[in-house]
């Protein structure tokens, strides 16, 4: 599992729910996928807004995206 977002979300919601959650969230954000760091940054920011465990995961995704070259939206 090379996709870092899928790996994190699979850890907290399981391998079946995680891809569905990613697809649904990407649709809401108008993203085609999470192939680049900038997309992952937007995805992470959206999760931060949701609070709770998703906020924590979103922060990790956002910081990882920045380390991989994304800039703040």
């Amino acid at each position: 599992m090379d996709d870092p977002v899928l790996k994190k979300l699979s850890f907290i919601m399981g391998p079946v729910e995680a891809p569905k959650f990613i697809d649904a969230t990407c649709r809401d954000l108008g993203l085609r996928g999470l192939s680049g760091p900038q997309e992952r940054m937007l995805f992470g920011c959206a999760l931060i807004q949701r609070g709770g465990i998703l906020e924590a995961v979103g922060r990790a995704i956002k910081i990882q995206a920045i380390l991989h070259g994304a800039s703040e939206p």
Partner: protein
Amino acid sequence: MLELTYDYATCVRNSEKVAWRVDEVMPTSARLDFSRPFLPSGLTGSDKVPFLSPAEQLLLNHINGHAYINLFAFVEEYIVATAVNHAQAEMFGDHSAIRALVRFAEEEIKHQELFWRYLAAFERDFKHPCQVLGSAAAVAQVILSKSPMAVMMVTLHLEIMTQAHYTESIGPDSNVDPLFARLLKHHWIEECQHAKIDALELEKMLAVSGPEQVKKAFSDYLELIDAFDGLLDQQAAMDCDSLSGALARIFDADERAQIVQAQHQGYRRTFLVSGMVNKSFVKVLKGMDADGAASVAQKAKSLA
């Protein structure tokens, strides 16, 4: 790619084997031996000022040793922030990486505590005030404003060179203060795991980076080297002032220029060139980008 032969779990295992406590390395009762030099000849400019007497050179060596420790305490500030940042990026993902990075951050904070204890002991017994660079947070801000890959390159540079600093201090003819040598040794044995973690982090960043990002990382790295060189020049001038105060002697312009130049050259060799030409560091740079590695080699030559 970097073709690394270790992983995060190995780094944690090795780190557990060599871990030490601050009280073991430097008990609060420890005294520095001011009859001996603190820094070996290869790490100081203090013995390159011919008009100073041996006793005055020894005094400058002590001032130099104090600044050396302060500079390390100084850079650990941004390294802690970097390690914590990289650990947070791995949350809910690679637990071996999280453990290695959190341990890395904890050890760096421990090194700061060791260095602060050493500086306090120095200041207690040296009897003369020594000027040192003061704003670690401002320097951390400059470093952390660069691309994350460049920040990790500088971190690897700083950590990988500590081995050379230790081996310099324990040569057969070394007469340095045993406490200072012990400090260099214990710093190095943990930093060598940190250097491996830096390389692992760099490899992950490289895997998702294009040639432009790598090129930018090299350019940012060289800018940080220049910025660091400016700080070292400031420290060299402060060392001259500290020596002047300790000896109650005013140096004329020519003497002052000689002291500052020798100190600056010593700092460059210790903090910049010894990292830039380190074989392990050069190997990582070549794995990142051959042209970038060549530009670093060129820069090292110009600073040597």
